[in-house]
């Protein structure tokens, strides 16, 4: 017996016999901590509890609504702490503990403790009692982190302990539904729930509640039925207190219910302020849960994304199987973090959740999470059953053909021909994820939304950290290159020597310009700087070519070279201009991130939806569609008008709605149910050709530019060879 008696006399261990003690000593550990040293921190697995053998330990946590940690409990010799694991198997810690004085602490694995207890001391009743005691202590700690605990004396809270029930919810599970009787008050211990109402089949999220928040308290006093529904946004753990117990508790503490209400109202006000009224559906508020759990979310600033697709291509190129883990489709979110009023696109790519839904779903444990929080799939263990891909709420895992040694593996026992793939943050690649590095405009970034997006931080009560990284500007280099180009043109070649000199410069610049493509494919560095250099070199090359060849195009290879160069230069300038001008225009008329190949399908889909929307609607609405909306949506010059007006889809909807109201002049107002949906469809239908045109403008010049450059390079070689033959 090496552990001190102060440990064994602690309440949970007192009933254990000698054999059980020996077992626990073998499995556990007696550790010493200096003053201020951390015993455990939040996020660690909660698979053990502790008993102080000597000294004092403080259990701390950030209480909801506060910023700094508070000491919840001071643990003296012979007392236990860190019992969180008894509440939820496989959970992680939410509290942290550190030594207040120099201390010695015994760590006792929960499983060993339970086994020893069950086998040793005998009665099942004892096991239950000890278990209940542990849970009770753990619950007390959780209770003290709640927002309303600030208004109540810590010891008084203990009277609630016996009434508390623990509710575990999976994503999408309902805590209570609108119209049900209010039987409990709830406090969120972990996870997130959304408070929502249903309006004609459409869900409207009213508020989000997270760890420490109370919900369902409004109707308690009156006993009225629930006015809202509460649904778990993700896996959640809720403390439920029956109405009667909580009311009795509140009666003895006047003002408590008001305090709870006030805390909830403050939270809701903060969220409303952060969400800007929550009116736009594209706002972060629409899927706050996603932004809460994401640890490394891929976002693309639509104001500078030029739709080149380098991100997806470089992703495919940096993985052996050639499958891109990133698809530029997805929802857009509005945020103040961007420079303009452009939204951020959240493409489908793994966001490395805090509590990944894919991980528990995997039957073979192939999905893992490393200490830094990166979620990864062990390909060897993956059976290809697709359970993780189905479990991911955002379709960020895809099934791809399994490759072994370059070939698609034959279907062997225990393995399907598929394997689950997802973003692995380009593990092993120096310089971070390839998608971020390869973005020529620096529009794409991996961020922790709670830190990078101020609204998310505000809604969750987290301090905002670093904002979105900004891309470096191209204009200084471009402006700087112009004088160089002008200086070059002033040295118009006349003599042979000057021809050789200017030709050499022009050739070197052309090779350097074409080298951009090689760099992009072979080295894949951070591309932004290289693109800026490409712009500057291009401008200088124009000067060098004018100096060498002038304006005359001779009917020979030199002339062809000149034509190819001017073609490449012109397409390059066009590209640079559209890259600067069009992304903002395009993002205004897009509702979601879409690839060019999606747009024809989208058009068909819109026509279908229109048909569905119109069936069973009033004659007034059908007339409005036939007379106003249909001509509006299909007008051949409509897309051009939309572009010229510079309105976003939302503005255009309001504009069109106003026009319809002018035409109707108040007639048939009662029969216009469903008009908003149709206006939405009509506006999007009108914007589709514009989207296609703008996407084409952003993408179609590249093949021309690349082909002309390749032709110019070949001709340059021929030209240089021929030129050396004439002396």
């Amino acid at each position, binding site marked *: 017996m090496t552990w001190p008696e102060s440990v064994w006399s602690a309440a949970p261990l007192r009933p254990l016999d000698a054999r059980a003690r020996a077992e626990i000593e073998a499995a556990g550990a007696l550790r010493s901590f200096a003053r201020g040293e951390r015993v455990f921190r939040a996020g660690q697995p909660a698979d053990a509890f502790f008993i102080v053998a000597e000294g004092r330990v403080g259990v701390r946590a950030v209480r909801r609504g506060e910023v700094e940690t508070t000491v919840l409990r001071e643990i003296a010799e012979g007392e236990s702490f860190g019992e969180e694991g008894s509440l939820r198997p496989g959970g992680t810690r939410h509290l942290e503990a550190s030594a207040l004085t120099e201390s010695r602490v015994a760590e006792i694995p929960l499983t060993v403790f339970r086994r020893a207890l069950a086998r040793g001391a005998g009665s099942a009743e004892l096991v239950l009692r000890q278990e209940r005691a542990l849970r009770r202590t753990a619950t007390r700690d959780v209770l003290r982190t709640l927002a309303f605990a600030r208004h109540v004396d810590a010891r008084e809270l203990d009277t609630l302990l016996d009434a508390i029930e623990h509710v575990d*919810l999976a994503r999408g599970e309902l805590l209570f539904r609108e119209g049900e009787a209010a039987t409990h008050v709830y406090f969120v211990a972990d996870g997130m729930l959304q408070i929502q109402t249903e309006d004609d089949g459409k869900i409207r999220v009213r508020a989000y509640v997270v760890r420490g928040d109370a919900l369902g308290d409004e109707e308690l006093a009156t006993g009225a039925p629930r006015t809202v529904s509460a649904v778990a946004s993700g896996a959640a753990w809720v403390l439920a207190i029956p109405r009667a117990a909580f009311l009795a508790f509140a009666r003895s503490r006047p003002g408590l219910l008001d305090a709870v209400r006030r805390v909830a109202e403050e939270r809701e006000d903060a969220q409303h302020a952060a969400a800007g009224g929550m009116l736009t559906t594209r706002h972060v508020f629409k899927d706050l849960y996603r932004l809460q759990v994401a640890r490394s979310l891929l976002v693309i600033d639509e104001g500078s994304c030029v739709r080149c*697709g380098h991100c997806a291509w470089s992703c495919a190129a940096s993985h052996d199987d050639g499958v891109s883990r990133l698809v530029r489709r997805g929802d857009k979110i509005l945020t103040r973090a961007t420079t303009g009023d452009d939204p951020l696109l959240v493409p489908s790519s793994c966001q490395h959740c805090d509590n990944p839904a894919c991980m528990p779903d995997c039957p073979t444990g192939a999905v893992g999470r490393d200490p830094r929080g990166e979620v990864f799939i062990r390909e060897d263990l993956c059976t290809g059953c697709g359970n993780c891909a189905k479990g991911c*709420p955002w379709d960020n895992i895809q099934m791809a053909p399994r490759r072994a040694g370059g070939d698609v593996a034959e279907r062997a026992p225990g393995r399907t021909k598929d394997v689950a793939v997802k973003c692995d943050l380009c593990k092993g690649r120096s310089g971070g994820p390839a998608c971020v590095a390869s973005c020529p405009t620096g529009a794409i970034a991996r961020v922790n939304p709670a830190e990078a997006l101020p609204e998310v931080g505000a809604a969750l009560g987290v301090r905002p950290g670093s904002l979105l990284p900004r891309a470096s500007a191209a204009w200084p280099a471009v402006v700087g290159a112009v004088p160089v180009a002008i200086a070059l043109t002033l040295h118009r070649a006349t003599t042979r020597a000057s021809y050789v000199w200017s030709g050499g410069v022009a050739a070197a610049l052309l090779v350097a310009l074409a080298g951009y493509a090689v760099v992009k494919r072979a080295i894949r560095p951070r591309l932004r700087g290289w693109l800026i250099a490409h712009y500057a070199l291009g401008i200088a090359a124009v000067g060098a070519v004018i100096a060498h060849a002038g304006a005359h195009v001779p*009917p020979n*290879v030199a002339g062809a070279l000149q034509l190819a160069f001017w073609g490449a230069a012109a397409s390059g300038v066009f590209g640079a201009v559209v890259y600067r001008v069009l992304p903002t225009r395009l993002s205004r008329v897009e509702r979601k991130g879409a690839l060019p190949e999606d747009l024809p399908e989208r058009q068909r889909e819109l026509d279908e939806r229109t*048909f569905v929307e119109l069936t069973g609607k009033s004659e007034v609405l059908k007339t409005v569609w036939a007379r106003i909306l249909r001509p509006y949506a299909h007008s051949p010059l409509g897309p051009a008008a939309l572009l010229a007006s510079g309105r976003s889809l939302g503005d255009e909807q309001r504009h069109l709605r106003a026009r319809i109201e002018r035409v109707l002049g108040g007639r048939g107002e009662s029969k216009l149910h469903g008009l908003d949906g149709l206006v939405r469809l009509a506006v999007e239908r009108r914007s589709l050709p514009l989207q296609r045109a703008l996407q084409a403008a952003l993408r179609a010049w590249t093949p021309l530019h690349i082909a002309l450059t390749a032709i110019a390079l070949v001709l340059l070689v021929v030209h240089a060879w021929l030129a050396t033959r004439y002396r």
Partner: protein
Amino acid sequence: MKPKGLVELEPAARRARTAPRAATTSDVTRVRDMGIAAGVGALAALAAVAFVPSRASEAAPGPLARPHVQAKIPCSACHGEKQAKGPEGACAGCHGGPAHASLRPGHRALAARGELGCTTCHPAHGDARGVTFAADGAYVLWASGAEVRATASHATPAGATVPLVPTAICAKCHDPADPRDPLAACTAPGAVVSTCFDEHQRADEATPAGNRCAGQHGPARFVAWEAAREIAEAAPTPARATGAGPWGIVGAGLGASGLALGGASLVRRRKRRRTGAPDADAKAVAATRVRLPQIDESTCIGCYACVDACPFDVIEIERFVAKVVRPADCCGVVLCEQVCPNGSLRITEGAPIETRPRLDGRLESTDSPGVFVAGDLSGLPLIKNAIHQGRRVIDHVAASLPNKERVKAPSATEVDVVIVGAGPAGISASLRARELGLSYVTLEQGTVASSVKSFPRSKLVFDQPLELPVEGELWLKESTKEELLAQWTRIVRARKLAIREGRRVDEITRDGGALVVSSVDAAGGRETVRARRLVLAIGKRGTPKTLGCPIAPAAEGKVAYSLADARSFAGQRVLVVGLGDTAMEAAIALARQPGTRVTVSYRGASFQRGKARNVAEMKRLVQRGAIRLVLESCAGRIGADSVTLETPRGAEELRVDAVLVLIGGTPSWDLVRQAGVRMGAQVAELSTESPEPAAPGI
């Protein structure tokens, strides 16, 4: 503790039943394609340079004049170190300076001011022209980079060269069209070269420079001038340098890269189509025997793949392994076996199925030639399969019906094929018949796709987990009932399919080789159609089963056999009879309406069938009091505003506003029997070959 339940309201919260597949997007392919296209373009440009060369040399703005090429004058002779002021000064070195001063005062004055040099009229590169005479009257008419060899008809001075000045050069100062211009004397109207050769030295004067002039121009200059004039006026100008030219080279390169880009996308599209092509008749015919999944519990990893794949919730996970929980619902389509990652689930064949029409591999009845069966009736469920079968069955009909057997003049009373039923299979068959040019008529007792229409509002029409091959254009991926119907009605209207709604087929007889199909409409109007072939696509719903109880005449209007839109029952008291999936879905939808009071009556003592999701939600709603479930009951009498429910505990009077009878339907077996189709196990082996069209040009 709180009752909990899955919310099906928020789509994001719904767990997908299909795992998304990685697809190659244009973002990835375009970079590859552009690389290929650029390479091809560069090679094409190179080929254009190599195979169709331009005659122009690289260092010059145009081809060198022929005499300079012949004399092998190096570039450095004119563009060397000495000619720092330009190449002009080099001419005098060979040609002699003063002798070539112009005789014309105007030109001479310009030359003196340095505004007119040798190369002004005689460019060494570019548009230099002239005639060089060889022996025996042969001569070369040359221009920039091109030359024509010919023989003069009269005497020519051998070795003489006469430069010709293009009028285009004169036109820089002169106006050749103006008769008052001195140039008019030197050019015939429309001539391309000037024919005045007395610019530098009069023709009849002796040559002061002696040998040098003779060496370059030949001895008899006058003769040479005359001959040159004649040639210049008669012979066409030599064609300009043939060759790709700068535009040609670049154009060839760009054209080739454009073709490569188009070709790459075409190849990809074809590849995609090939991999996505349906695999013949593999799933066109229902299984002949009862099929049931057998699960090896020692290897099952409990991955849910089969659970998600099964459209009828036959399988569930119990204690970490898959279990067959509703064997009766198994449809025999082996989706679960296909997705099982480690082969723990195998489909085994059991007893032959006796309740299916006996069909051969071409979906033709083995007992009644000429009668084909498609859709649910054949024993193969799912809308997708019905669409697939409808198309296939017409292919087989066409194959079995040679051109000479077809109806020559189709009319309302005689067609190639009669299709009975306009559900998914019937519409698909009609569409295919139209495509293949068969004459057909489709008879439908209700309206187009009425069984699909009776689905609950916005029901997802089966988000099929695996990619079953679907032919034709009727299918929409993961669509709601309304979307599917919208597309179908649009196709029926746009293609003008000959579907006659409201005609119930009640008699099928044979008359020689033809089948006579007799039908009645609601008004009792009878029509008969003679057909070569018959396709039965009547499904299994048949006519809805009715309650065997008396219905008061006043209550007839409130008894319905399907639920189209639960919203129309808001605030009413509704009795739902039945506890199958349809009934449960209807009851759940009704219970969600504000103020609707739902009572469900079922003759069984407990839940006996149905999807797990529906059962769970029903139990939840019953527990919450949103639905009242009366088990072991049957309707005794339906009155004007009440229903009598008879239970073992005694009769109960229930006040209701509407009654929904959802207890399934009786398939029209009579009709099937009349057509000569027999039930039982299939006798023929499945044929897997695709049918060949009977006649060319189909």
